[in-house]
């Protein structure tokens, strides 16, 4: 007699178990289970397992007590199913002797996969399916597995616009072994179906085009635009229909509904969609009242809420303004930033009179919440202190949404964690008005090895570079931490060597972001050495060597606000010429040396963000002053009769620089960048004049040219790159470079894609700048103007790439024609 039966298509369905009582246990019905001892278990059916193995699967033991029916036998069956080894499992009662029960299990084994063949799917995708469903040799071919594979293949093609995909399974037994099968999966994706037309009916307030553009974002009509792929994905289509209603709600049509929508397949490749809407009538906002507010005044709340009496009743926008705005400019955020995590805000329609709705925003403020336990997890490499010192969400602080976001940016900015995987896990404890916060982190490698060869500067160049972004000096002498290098203290160490024919360059730099102390103070040092040599026309050796070192400290300030940084640095460079014909400005050097020892003090404020590649808000500002010792005052030498080489042996100058750029999101995603900069190179002693080093070269994008002389290249689009010594027909930089410059920029940027792999944005710009050799020529508003458009692509592997087409409206110094159109390529730097 069959006691229990289940079949494969039901995974585990215990309540479908049938009990067919035998003559011996007629009195042991469903309602009255009886206990037996398991006498023995017979196995029948087609399978390759021994009785002992089957018993092990079931977890039953001969001689153990069993209730029939009961949970033990149910569990035994479940366990057999879970092995995924059988296509059929039946239990029968063979016989009953006294209180001993003898059971028989009839099992049908499932075929085992040997060879798999998938047709009609791209190779890479085929491997994805195999991985996803573990279709390796030895797996049991169950119906469930086949269904899953079928569904995942169908879904894959559906998302690509193929709704008619057919998936066929052809199973063939392996000769001589009934327990094994070969499986062939034939996939026929069918025709790609596009949306020929989307038609709206009944719409008066919003045109077809508006609805298509704003609401049907994932259900697009076929068009000549290559990037707008048209496909029909049912679940996205349903979402889009909801967006149609939301569009109406956002302009006050609060009763709008979709009366009907039809999707018609006109032929193999095309469908048409008809959507009938009923708009209803527009509603307007009546009186707006706030109740329950004590922390903020009604005026403050009204300002943030921004909707006013008489406005169209924008149900969607009102909800967002109350809580859940993407831009965090809603009322809930206002409360959250003051620590009122437990506040609740609810917009309630108090009354609807004709077309006017009175709104009451009910507020329950609760008590402000503070952080209690603040922890972080996932820092497998980075040490606790590096994270703890960055946190702006510390125990005892008031809960603040803004500070959580800022901490998130700052943790991401360290570069030691996957930015997308940083997650603040907030656990509120309403009973004592505290919040526990755990920062979930995931390690990201911040080390780079750069090994490259290339052709540059007329010779083959080989580069070897090592950068460790999360180094630990303290662990350098601990053997076990070398895996492969000591990491985790957040220091950065970089070594670079570059060599080519007649050229060598070595550099070393080290930065400790926090040398201790109570406020973040960073120490950075770098040393470099470059050597150039060649044989001149007489066959004699010519050499130029540059050696330099810099030590700097930079400290985060708390006043006027905590975006400010103050930095100090000392820097030294020595140039050695040996028969090396070098033109520095208007001077020619052959033998001798030049030394530049200076001190720089700088103040920066950088609040641009959140994405450093495409900032949408904030600003960057900096001012810096560089000074050298006034040697000529101290040494009493007569500079008026001195040779150039001697005059510039120890460079004396001072330099002032400043810049400020603002970023602001205008309408939609359009971002405005505007600002300006200036620089001035001065001298203490008129007898020496302005030094030929450290000058400003304006024009182009500044990718060209060497920088032996400490020059500063200031990009100005629409004009050609500055030449080696300036002053040519194409230059806007005077001969020998400028000693003073200014520049103003206005740029509109629009993001095309902000994906993980690549960020692309388009821009239009207008800028103007100029540089002068002498202060007495300086006319700050007599500028060289330009305008143009461009594109930028940022990929983390390559950095920033792009090009600009700029039109220069003004002429170069020795040219009467306007500069005209110029094409600029941008590599690696940011504008």
């Amino acid at each position, binding site marked *: 007699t069959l006691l229990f039966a289940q079949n494969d298509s039901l995974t585990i369905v215990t309540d479908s178990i049938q009990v067919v009582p035998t003559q011996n246990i007629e009195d042991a019905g469903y309602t009255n289970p009886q206990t037996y001892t398991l006498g023995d278990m017979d196995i029948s059916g087609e399978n390759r397992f021994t009785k002992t193995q089957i018993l092990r699967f079931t977890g039953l033991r001969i001689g153990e007590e069993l209730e029939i029916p009961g949970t033990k036998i149910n569990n035994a069956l479940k366990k057999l199913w879970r092995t995924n080894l059988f296509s059929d499992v039946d239990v029968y009662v063979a016989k009953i002797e006294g209180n001993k029960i003898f059971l028989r299990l009839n099992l049908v084994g499932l075929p085992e996969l040997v060879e798999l063949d998938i047709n009609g799917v791209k190779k890479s995708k085929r491997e994805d399916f195999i991985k996803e469903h573990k279709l390796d040799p*030895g797996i049991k071919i169950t119906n469930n597995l086949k269904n899953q594979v079928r569904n995942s293949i169908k879904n894959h093609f559906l998302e690509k616009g193929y709704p008619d995909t057919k998936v066929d399974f052809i199973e063939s037994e392996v000769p001589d072994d009934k327990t094994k099968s070969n499986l062939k999966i034939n996939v026929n994706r069918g025709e790609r179906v596009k949306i020929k037309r989307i038609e709206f009916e009944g719409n008066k307030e919003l045109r077809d085009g508006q609805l298509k553009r704003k609401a049907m974002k994932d259900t697009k009509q076929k068009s000549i635009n290559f990037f707008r792929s048209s496909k029909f994905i049912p679940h996205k289509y349903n979402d889009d229909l909801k967006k149609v209603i939301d569009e109406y709600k956002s302009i006050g049509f609060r009763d709008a509904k979709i009366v009907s929508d039809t999707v018609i397949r006109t032929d193999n490749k095309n469908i048409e969609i008809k959507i009938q809407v009923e708009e209803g009538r527009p509603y307007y906002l009546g009186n707006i009242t706030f109740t329950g507010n004590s922390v903020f005044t009604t005026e403050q709340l009204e300002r943030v809420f921004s909707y006013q009496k008489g406005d169209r009743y924008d149900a969607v926008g009102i909800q967002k303004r109350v809580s859940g705005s993407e831009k965090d400019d809603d009322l809930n955020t206002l409360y959250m930033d003051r620590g009122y995590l437990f506040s609740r805000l609810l917009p309630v329609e108090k009354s609807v009179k004709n077309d006017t709705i009175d709104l009451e925003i009910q507020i329950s403020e609760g008590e402000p919440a503070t952080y209690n336990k603040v922890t972080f997890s996932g820092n497998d*490499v980075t*040490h606790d202190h590096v994270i703890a*010192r960055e946190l702006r969400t510390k125990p005892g*602080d008031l809960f603040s949404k803004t500070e959580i976001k800022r901490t998130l940016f700052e943790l991401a900015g360290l570069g030691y964690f996957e930015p997308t995987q940083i997650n603040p896990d907030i656990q509120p404890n309403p009973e004592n008005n505290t919040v526990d916060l755990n920062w979930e982190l995931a390690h990201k490698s911040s080390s780079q090895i750069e090994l490259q060869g290339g052709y540059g500067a007329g010779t083959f160049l080989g580069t070897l570079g090592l950068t460790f972004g999360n180094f630990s000096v303290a662990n350098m002498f601990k053997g076990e931490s070398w895996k492969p290098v000591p990491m985790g203290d957040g220091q950065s160490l970089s070594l670079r060597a570059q060599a080519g024919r007649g050229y060598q360059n070595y550099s070393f730099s080290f930065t400790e972001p926090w040398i201790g102390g109570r*406020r973040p103070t960073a120490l950075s040092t770098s040393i470099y050495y470059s050597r150039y040599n060649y044989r001149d026309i007489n066959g004699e050796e010519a050499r130029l060597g540059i050696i330099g070192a810099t030590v700097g400290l930079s400290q985060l300030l708390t006043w006027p606000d905590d975006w400010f940084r103050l930095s100090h640095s000392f820097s030294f460079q020595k140039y050695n010429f040996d028969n090396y014909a070098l033109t520095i400005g208007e001077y020619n050097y052959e033998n001798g040396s030049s030394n530049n020892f200076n001190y720089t003090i700088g103040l920066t404020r950088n609040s641009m963000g959140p994405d450093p590649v495409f900032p949408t808000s904030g600003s960057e500002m900096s001012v810096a002053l560089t000074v050298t010792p006034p040697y000529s005052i101290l040494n009493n030498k007569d500079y008026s009769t001195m040779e150039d080489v001697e005059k510039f042996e120890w460079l004396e100058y001072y330099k002032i620089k400043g810049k400020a750029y603002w970023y602001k999101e205008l309408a939609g995603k359009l971002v405005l960048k505007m600002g300006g900069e200036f620089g001035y190179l001065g001298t203490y002693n008129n007898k020496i004049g302005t030094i030929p080093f450290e000058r400003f070269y304006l024009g182009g994008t500044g990718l060209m040219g060497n920088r032996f002389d400490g020059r500063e290249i200031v990009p100005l689009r629409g004009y050609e790159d500055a030449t080696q010594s300036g002053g040519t027909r194409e230059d806007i930089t005077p001969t020998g470079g400028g000693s003073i410059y200014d520049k103003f920029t206005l740029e509109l940027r629009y993001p095309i894609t902000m994906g993980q792999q690549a960020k692309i944005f388009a821009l239009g710009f207008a800028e103007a700048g100029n540089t002068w050799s002498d202060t007495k020529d300086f006319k700050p508003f007599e500028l060289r103007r330009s305008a143009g458009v461009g594109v930028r692509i940022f990929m983390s592997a390559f950095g920033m790439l792009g090009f600009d087409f700029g039109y220069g409206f003004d002429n170069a110094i020795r040219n009467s024609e306007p500069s005209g159109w110029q094409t600029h390529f941008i590599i690696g730097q940011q504008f």
Partner: protein
Amino acid sequence: CNRRYERAMKSTDKDLILQTANEFFAEGKYAFAIELYSKVASSFSGTDEAANILYNSAEANFQDKNYRLAAHQFKNFYVTNPADPRAEDAAYKSAYSYYTDSPKYNLDQTSTYSAMSELQSFINMFPESPNVAQANGYIDELRQKLEKKAFEIAKIYHKTMKFKAAAIAFDNMLDEYPDTKFREEAMMYSLRSKYELALNYSRFETEELRFQNTITQHKLLLKAFPETKYKDEADKLLKKTEEALVKHRETAVKIEEHKKAVANNTPAK
């Protein structure tokens, strides 16, 4: 060696793969054995060999120092084969692997928590095992690691002058690990943090409460450690706090008088 591995890896004969895997295992070439065991495991599921494959694979990972994997596989072994004579050994090795995988105190401690719970469940499952004493020792060691972590993070707050955060962090740590060996030091740090917060970083309205907190912390410290080595420093902080509190109250009285005077519209004294 490599050729034997390649041949087995490409083979579809599961017996050959298993045999080669066992040979590599016996020779101590664990990395090869692990790969082959994982390839062949599903083909032997349900057979007598399955348990051996799982155990050997776990052991190979253990020997190859892949503690995270070994821990997982040993656990899998004793859960699926509770009656196997190797179950106790597997349970211990699983717990031990978790223990070995626990990193330095200043890194993520997820493994430490797993290790503590695995060690505890080993002790519960095999209370008679000769390894119980050792397992208890490991648990203590791991708990001390967590104590040190909490203590060091609280110290970072103190060092960077985040005294409010430091005081809460030290107190939380003392609540969580009441028998910590850092108790005396942590209580003193808590006192220092509360003192700094009250005297140097408080608005007038919050001062009274924070002075009281400082005085209470002094009491707690001396009650727990009457002979504390920090006694001199603690008493000095207490004295300064009490002085400041007196001054605070005097000021408060003056403010009240001033307010009253203004209210009565007569000039203040």
